[in-house]
């Protein structure tokens, strides 16, 4: 049974799934039912050092940079409408390939063009993000963005971080005003 995450909670991934080598981060949402611009949600990841910054722009993985230089993070591609069942976007995190000087991987979700389209998470139906063990695709944890994101347009869903030799996941659920650009700059990206 997957853990339904509440803001601030954490799970020890290495304990929940002892065989865990590779994570899938899945993002899904319902397509817009009313008239107007589609809901386009984008998943992204930041590889951060102990000081909370990226080492370089290559540590920011999103729809225009689908793979980290070391191959640890792969974004499987952008879905711009949310059509279809299951996860609409996925990222994989190969834990063994995460460089030793990277302390944590922050996973964020933003709404593309949210300001111009006057959209926020609360309007998007059934938006969620979940973490799975890539081996067997068993869901470990899930977080509901439509309810908890409400009026936000960018949200740090959570972070995968080192705890000694183990990996933990924390449900951050922290909104960030301004979208993907300002979020990236806050982590030291020269976007």
């Amino acid at each position, binding site marked *: 049974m997957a853990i339904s995450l509440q803001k601030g909670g954490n799970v020890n991934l290495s304990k929940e799934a002892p065989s865990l080598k590779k994570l899938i981060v899945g993002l899904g949402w319902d397509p817009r039912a009313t*008239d107007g611009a589609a809901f386009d949600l984008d998943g992204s990841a930041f590889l951060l050092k102990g000081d909370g910054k990226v080492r370089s722009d290559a540590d920011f993985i999103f729809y225009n940079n689908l793979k980290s230089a070391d191959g640890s993070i792969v974004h499987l591609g952008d879905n711009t409408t949310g059509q279809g069942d299951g996860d609409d976007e996925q990222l994989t995190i190969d834990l063994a390939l995460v460089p030793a000087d990277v302390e944590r991987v922050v996973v964020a979700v933003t709404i593309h063009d949210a300001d111009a389209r*006057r*959209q926020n998470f609360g309007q998007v139906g059934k938006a969620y993000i979940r973490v799975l063990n890539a081996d067997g695709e068993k869901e470990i944890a899930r977080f509901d963005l439509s309810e908890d994101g*409400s*009026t936000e347009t960018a949200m740090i869903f959570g972070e995968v971080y080192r705890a000694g030799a183990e990996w933990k996941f924390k449900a951050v659920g922290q909104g960030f005003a301004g979208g993907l650009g300002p979020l990236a700059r806050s982590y030291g990206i020269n976007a």
Partner: protein
Amino acid sequence: MAISLRKGRNLNLSKTDPSLRHLRLGLGWNANACEDGDFDLDASIFMLTDAGKVRGDGDFIFYGQLHSSCGGVEHTGDNRTGLGDGDDEMLNIQLAKIPREIARLVVAVTIHEAEARQQNFGKVEDAFIRLVNLDTGTELARFDLTEDYSSQTALIFGELYRAGEDWKFKAVGQGYAGDLRALALLHGVDVQ
């Protein structure tokens, strides 16, 4: 003090007011000062299952059917002009009477004969929905629709939905370039 909701925001009504049993949804609007002629706006409710459809026509409450088949929703009557202050149309809901298989109640407002009269929500101002505890008279929340909805003639003002044993309300403020009939068809109502 009532909570002012922004579009997309949700509110747990049961937690905000544990005494809530009977809920009134009051809807109001005014025609833009520059506009001539009458604006006849109609409020309606669709009671939907998880599948997003009504179970039958008795789950569609509007000016032509003022009571739901379950008796839990009552439309207090059609207002044809929107003149005057306060709520122009009201819907009263007895939460305990809403059948379990109903997951959410979508609250919509459509413009009567919008096409023939060349009217849309861009010509309507001060539209709002407010939620009142009917037993105490306390206003719990209010959502003012402030955008320019000039391409729309049918607007979902909000939705009331279950969250476990609680009821929540979400400010939606999204719509369609359609009429009440189109909206009814979309939600599975068998329109003659």
